[in-house]
């Protein structure tokens, strides 16, 4: 393929096809990828789950846990104790109980210095007890944890989970087969306590400036192999939901998720994924829709990067963990699971984990679950995602080819000059398939050239670098902006939520003016070059992102790719306005607000429109605020990624849309 270096051929067939049908090919690829992905929810496209790790031996022994009465007694005592402390954890009682059960019991203090306001801090207390293994050397451990929820907390209570945990501790302490230590952990302040405990357990380096002062642990129990978090609001539950989405979309090993599902099935406990039971006839169309709904719901959860339970914070340390969440809403007359059943499930889980010879590593870490016993592995969903994402690459390639062609035509238009200074222009290059081993060409490069055209290569590279630098610096500013905004807002007594939202909105509006400032000061860079670069950047971002948080990358690709295909400067005013509107609709800020509002509408379908609108505004503000605070406290990447990657890309696209269209060139 001579592609662009031989004028005799006007490029090879590949580049001709690419240039002629770029739009159609891109749209086709996108649609094929999207349909393929949706089809993955059907059982003929995904696979039945299985155990990779042989050492787990799930359900090989009969459950012996009989401590329901004991658990209920603990529950009564705990409820009585809770009444005395409406807003704090009764850690003295917990400590006393754990010590009575023969555990090595310790407390752990932590302090949060709220990052969005000066001199505002919260303190908390965790209690944990270690059951030392009879047959081991405290070199490995398993964690059973439960968050403590005070009566004043907005969440459902979790006392039954703690009671069950204590009953299990009592039962476990009488068994002789433990080869790993078991840590029973009760955390305060939801994920904050868990984060502090984990950071302290693993001896993280303190942050500067310190946001979460995670204190010190007195005792440890070796590397944690796996963890199970309990959230059981009632002593009778209709079904158990196994939650697995972790911080930044990280997932636990599929074997652990399977283990819980398998043991629930064995103990005849109803079990669900994303609170959705399996469809009776999964092979039918309605079964496919049902599974698709489950799949999309878990994608939405994973994309936020917020853990769906306390388990999600373990993943960062390479520890597989899940939350077992008892739910009380269910079909009337359905079978109800008691603490006995749940205790049996947990007993089986701990005994299986006790058998583990090494950390979970056999099964998948990258998967999607459309049903409790079906999975879509990375090798199955990546081709579909690749098809969607590759329309970005295709667009970049065709832009590259067309700008090369344009350069050639420009050169051909210019009168032949005597000065033979044919020189480099990074544009006049070509691409070729990797497999092409033979280099073929027809003739040489174009005959004539002159300085303005030949210089344009370097010049456009330099101005591209300048434009990109400005846009990325804007992203950097945006990442620090919320702190500045909230501190400024505090001066005028504005609530942090409001000041961050207003500040971000103001910044976004100012940045809308960036392209006109850029075009005035930086010239010599055609929109094609910028668009080619931005498409490549977006492609790199989504493909790299798909390995970190697949769902987020999928959503970004699904939303951005069609707009990127459409973006191009036009002379028609109406089309330009439409495209600008389209771009504004995918601004990271708009996207955040849209997703938060959709969530609110789905959760509160019966509210009157005005109240719903107000709720949407509040929820959007809060979503922005939470993403900022989460990035400081837990290291959630969504906000930094939006600032450092997505916002610059968006600004560059905006710049492309507002730049002048290129004058047409007639072929000589």
């Amino acid at each position: 393929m001579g592609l662009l270096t031989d004028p005799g051929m006007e490029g090879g067939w590949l580049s001709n096809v690419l240039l002629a049908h770029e739009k159609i090919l891109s749209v086709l690829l996108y649609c094929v990828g999207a349909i393929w992905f949706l089809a993955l929810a059907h059982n003929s496209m995904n696979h039945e789950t299985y155990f990779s790790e042989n050492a787990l031996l799930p359900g090989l022994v009969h459950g012996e846990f009989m401590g329901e009465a004991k658990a209920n007694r603990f529950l009564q005592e705990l409820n009585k104790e809770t009444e005395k402390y409406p807003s704090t954890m009764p850690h003295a009682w917990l400590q006393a109980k754990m010590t009575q059960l023969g555990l090595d019991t310790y407390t752990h203090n932590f302090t949060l210095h709220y990052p969005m306001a000066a001199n505002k801090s919260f303190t908390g207390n965790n209690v944990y007890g270690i059951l030392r293994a009879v047959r081991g050397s405290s070199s490995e451990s398993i964690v059973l944890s439960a968050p403590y929820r005070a009566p004043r907390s907005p969440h459902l209570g979790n006392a039954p989970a703690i009671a069950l945990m204590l009953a299990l501790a009592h039962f476990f302490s009488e068994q002789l087969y433990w080869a790993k230590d078991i840590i029973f952990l009760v955390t305060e302040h939801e994920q904050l306590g868990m984060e502090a405990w984990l950071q302290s357990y693993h001896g993280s380096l303190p942050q500067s400036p310190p946001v979460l002062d995670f204190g010190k642990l007195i005792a440890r129990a070796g590397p944690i192999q796996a963890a199970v978090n309990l959230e059981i609001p009632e002593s009778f539950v209709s079904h158990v939901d196994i939650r697995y989405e972790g911080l930044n979309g990280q997932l636990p090993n599929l074997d652990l998720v399977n283990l819980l599902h398998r043991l629930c099935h064995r103990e005849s406990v109803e079990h669900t994924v994303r609170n959705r039971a399996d469809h009776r006839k999964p092979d039918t169309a309605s079964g496919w829709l049902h599974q698709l709904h489950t799949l999309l719901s878990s994608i939405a959860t994973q994309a936020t990067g917020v853990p769906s339970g306390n388990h999600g914070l373990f993943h960062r340390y390479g520890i597989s963990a899940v939350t077992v969440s008892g739910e009380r809403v269910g079909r009337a007359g359905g079978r109800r699971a008691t603490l006995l059943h749940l205790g049996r499930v947990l007993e089986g889980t701990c005994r299986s984990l006790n058998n583990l010879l090494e950390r979970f590593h056999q099964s998948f870490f990258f998967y999607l679950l459309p049903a409790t016993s079906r999975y879509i592995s990375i090798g199955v969903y990546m081709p579909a995602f690749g098809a969607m994402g590759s329309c970005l690459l295709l667009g970049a390639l065709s832009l590259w080819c067309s700008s090369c062609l344009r350069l050639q035509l420009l050169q051909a238009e210019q009168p032949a000059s005597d000065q033979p200074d044919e020189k480099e222009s990074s544009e006049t290059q070509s691409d070729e398939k990797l497999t092409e081993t033979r280099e073929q060409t027809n003739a040489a490069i174009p005959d004539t050239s002159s300085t303005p055209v030949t210089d344009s290569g370097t010049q456009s590279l330099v101005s591209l670098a300048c434009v990109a630098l400005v846009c990325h610096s804007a992203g950097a500013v945006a990442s620090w902006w919320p702190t500045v905004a909230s501190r400024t807002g505090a001066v005028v007594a504005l609530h942090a939520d409001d000041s961050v939202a207003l500040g971000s909105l103001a910044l976004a509006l100012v940045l809308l003016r960036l392209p006109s400032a850029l075009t005035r000061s930086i010239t010599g860079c055609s929109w094609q070059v910028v668009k080619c670069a931005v498409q490549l950047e977006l492609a790199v971002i989504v493909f790299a992102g798909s390995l970190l948080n697949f769902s987020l990358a999928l959503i970004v690709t699904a939303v951005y790719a069609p707009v990127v295909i459409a973006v191009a400067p036009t002379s028609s005013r109406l089309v330009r306005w439409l495209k600008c509107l389209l771009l504004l609709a995918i601004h990271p800020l708009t996207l955040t607000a849209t997703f938060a509002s959709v969530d609110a509408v789905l959760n509160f379908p019966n509210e009157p429109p005005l109240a719903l609108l107000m709720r949407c505004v509040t929820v959007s503000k809060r979503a922005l605020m939470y993403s900022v605070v989460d990035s400081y406290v837990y290291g959630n990447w969504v906000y930094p990624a939006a600032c450092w990657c997505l916002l610059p890309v968006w600004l560059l696209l905006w710049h492309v849309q507002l730049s002048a269209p290129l004058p047409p060139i007639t072929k000589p």
Partner: protein
Amino acid sequence: MRGMVLLYAVAALLRLWLMNSATLATAISSRVEVSTPLNSWLRVKEGVYLQSQGVAVYSGGVFHESPITLFLGGIFIRSWGWWVQVVFITCDLLTAFLLSRAAMAYANKLLGEQHTEAPRYAPDSRPLLLSAASLAGATKDVAAAYLLCPYTVLSCTALTTTTLHNLVLASLLLAMLKGRAVLFGALVALATYQAVYPVVLLVPGLIALYQYHADPYHHNCASAPPLPDSSKEVRSGALRPALQDHCVRILCRSLVSFVVTAALLLLVSAEIAGGWDFLEATYGFILSAPDLTPNIGLFWYFFTEMFEHFRLFFLAVFQLNAVIFQSIYPCHAPTHVTHPPMSRTYPCHAPFHVTHPPMSRTYPFLRQSFLVGCMLVASSVLGPIMYNQWIFSGAANANFYFAVTLAFNTAQIFLVTDLLFGHVKRQHLLYNGSSMTIEGKPARLTLE
């Protein structure tokens, strides 16, 4: 001129800022892509400390730098402290300056070659010819490319000794292009002393020196016997015996300088290290690849699972591969010394960019630049992500990371091959003209 000063200032400030931003600097210097066992500053500090405690530095398997680096590093660390950063930045700026000078010398050489060869070129090859103006622009680009290349910036930020290696390589290149035979020999010895592999530069370098001194274009400046013959005669191979003798003498001088410098360096090293143990810990370490920590090269993956009795054989094969890759390109076009790290034992990103002299004349003939560019960017971004997923999250595994390193190395091979093809093709078109027909029909140029 003002642009260049600005460029150097920006590059220096960028490096200084990165070095002094606490979190970034530690993060960068702990990356396997930047710091290897061979070049990490942390290991130099460790070595200096061990020596000050009277521990045998080379017996512990921690320190693999040469004894002279140990000596100089000790001086810097003990008594100069903060100036270490300044020294490294200066080295990098100096390297860029030397590279742009080398590019200039190379441009002059190309112009001279074009001048003497012009009569033999095909009549329609005029657009391919070079002009002084465009070459001057290209020499500036060389400095800019070196100074702003993220790989070199990161490498300098992490204070890796590769920065010093690059300085030696750049001066070596300049000496070669300026025809300084003795200096060239000494510098090759120094570079070899630092990292073994540059020894292969001796062959292409000697060829280039021979060409330089045999070329009549340089004779007004060189102290050679006057050459009355016309240049064509010289080109056709009929070198006058006097000139030939002169060239051979120069090559011998260069070789002797190489040997003497190498011997001196080794003796001084033995004196500093107090014995010959350092040979095992430095050159033995490079050649036998005992450290299999993952890096961007290919050795670690293969040798992790190698059976012990095959190890020596495959080690030889891999090292031969390294030597071939590093010498084939410079041998073909002696003044294009590339220094790709791909097949080394402990490669890092930095040397990759060090020596690409003005290649720009082959740009129009490159066919895979888009592909190579995308591959390099993608593998540079994916590499750290895969490493993180594998080592810290435990979610991915070695194969993921190795796939990325493989892509990175493939991209480099593509780049080198592409440059070579571009060069060959340009030469062909210069002499044979750009319109190709066989018996009146359009023909294709096929390289097999």
